[in-house]
């Protein structure tokens, strides 16, 4: 995928102030010491000018960067610091962590910590490593995806191609930078030389609506729960003349809502793109061409330009979706020792999703191979959740199952501790209790090797 270099037209808008690419480099210029190809930066990012400038400069200088959310648990952050030994940590100044730094600098609401690094001498960081993105949510299993420069360029180029993003496009940030979908919007808009309006405010706040009304927003992107919120807030009863594209990924949108958005899009001359992706594929894997959505309402679409999708199954129509492309990440990292590794996937990714392909070449997902669900599009490992609860509540035997947005926790114990488990899980995993169902059961079945049996 060759990218047309329109970066010079790229603009960021924050609080009605416009920032050109030169302004962005000016913001990072006092911090040249941060950008060292051989050392890792950890950024607890927010959708603001400083975070995005740091990220873009890291890419430009080929300095590897790990992206985390700015509301990360300090204990989790400390574990990550210990495991990954970065030379720089950039974090909101309200987050207090105990780690001995070499120096500290302050910029607006950020603290920039420098750490002594004498640990990389025998294992240099792979020169193709661009970004580390977290996979699972907050269950303490900090596994990161190793994304290369080529992955980013390839996926951005492909996305710009099928979404037809150009210099006249303008979108507003609705997703975190540390989330592959959110980051892909930044990467694609940057390379397309388009405009990104920044806000940290949620769509439920007055600021977001002011931005929609006072800027010529041409595109809006979101995950299912964002569209549910937009729907409740009457978005699909209003008209935004400049809006020409709506994109959705991060899980399956409920069919009624999908149809409603499709009707709204047809009535308002908007291209509505339903998409599918994974962090392990940098971001995007497939999309449904808007004109076909009515006929392919449950489909995840066709592979994005430059990639191939196959169903891995010998005898049946249904099997695991396997992706081939330059957007397939290099592998995972659990600690600094994994950062020197190269490409372990060689452009081929087993997605862990099960599905089939129809006669027109459109793909459908019917199930998931791996034991995780998504709650508000954030991945949650069911096995890790079980361990988390069992570690907190000694003597408890726990079974976690469920579907997206619905976690079911069943446990075996003499006493009833539904309430305690609910409070613990909601706080630890940061989910609303409406996504949770807890019940006591008599027994957890195990197979002959002692492994828990799930239905």
């Amino acid at each position: 995928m060759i990218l047309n270099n329109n970066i010079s037209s790229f603009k960021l808008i924050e609080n009605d102030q416009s920032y050109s690419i030169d302004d962005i480099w000016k913001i990072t210029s006092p911090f040249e010491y941060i950008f060292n190809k051989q050392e890792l930066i950890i950024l607890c990012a927010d959708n603001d000018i400083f975070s995005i400038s740091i990220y873009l400069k890291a890419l430009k200088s080929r300095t590897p960067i790990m992206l985390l959310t700015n509301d990360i648990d300090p204990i989790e952050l400390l574990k990550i610091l210990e495991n990954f030994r970065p030379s720089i940590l950039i974090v909101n100044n309200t987050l207090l962590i105990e780690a001995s730094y070499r120096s500290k600098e302050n910029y607006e609401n950020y603290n920039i910590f420098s750490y002594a690094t004498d640990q990389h001498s025998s294992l240099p960081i792979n020169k193709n490593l661009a970004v580390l993105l977290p996979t699972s949510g907050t269950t303490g299993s900090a596994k990161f995806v190793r994304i290369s420069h080529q992955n980013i360029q390839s996926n951005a180029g492909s996305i710009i191609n099928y979404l037809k993003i150009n210099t006249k496009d303008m979108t507003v940030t609705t997703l975190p930078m540390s989330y592959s979908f959110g980051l892909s919007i930044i990467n694609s808009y940057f390379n397309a030389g388009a405009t990104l309006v920044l806000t940290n405010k949620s769509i439920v706040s007055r600021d977001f609506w002011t931005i929609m009304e006072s800027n010529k927003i041409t595109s809006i992107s979101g995950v299912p729960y964002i569209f549910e919120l937009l729907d409740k807030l009457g978005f699909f009863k209003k008209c935004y003349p400049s809006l020409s594209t709506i994109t959705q990924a991060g899980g399956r949108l409920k069919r009624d809502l999908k149809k409603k958005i499709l009707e709204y899009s047809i009535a308002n001359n908007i291209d509505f793109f339903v998409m599918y992706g994974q962090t392990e594929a940098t971001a995007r894997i497939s999309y449904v061409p808007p004109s076909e959505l009515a006929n392919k309402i449950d489909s995840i679409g066709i592979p994005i330009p430059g990639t191939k999708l196959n169903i891995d199954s010998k005898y049946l129509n249904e099997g695991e979706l396997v992706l081939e492309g330059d957007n397939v990440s290099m592998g995972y990292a659990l600690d600094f020792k994994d950062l020197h590794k190269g490409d372990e996937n060689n452009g081929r990714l087993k997605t862990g999703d099960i599905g089939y392909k129809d006669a027109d070449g459109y793909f459908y997902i019917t199930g998931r191979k791996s034991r995780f669900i998504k709650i508000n599009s954030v991945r949650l490992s069911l096995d890790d959740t079980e361990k988390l609860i069992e570690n907190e509540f000694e003597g408890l035997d726990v079974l976690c199952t469920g579907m997206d947005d619905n976690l079911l926790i069943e446990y075996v114990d003499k006493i009833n501790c539904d309430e305690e488990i609910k409070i613990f899980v909601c706080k630890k995993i940061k989910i609303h209790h409406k996504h949770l169902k807890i019940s006591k059961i008599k027994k957890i079945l195990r197979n002959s090797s002692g492994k828990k049996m799930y239905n």
Partner: protein
Amino acid sequence: MSTLDKYRKVFKECFQYDGDVDALEYQSIEEWDSVAHMQLMAELEDEFKVEMDIDDIIDFSSFKEGIKILSKYDVEIA
């Protein structure tokens, strides 16, 4: 139960929050995020039998602000 007690109860249950709900503002605590906000609106609408305007949902930025907003729907929180 007074309407103020009922109002407080909705907040406490929605956020599973034991602290001082009177001081709560949107996003002032982890629990009051955008998803919980819509849940809170739905529960308040149920409790007080009202259907709130979009603008009021967006402007419902705190426990105290909410009292003013509900009075527009003839709900007296006291």
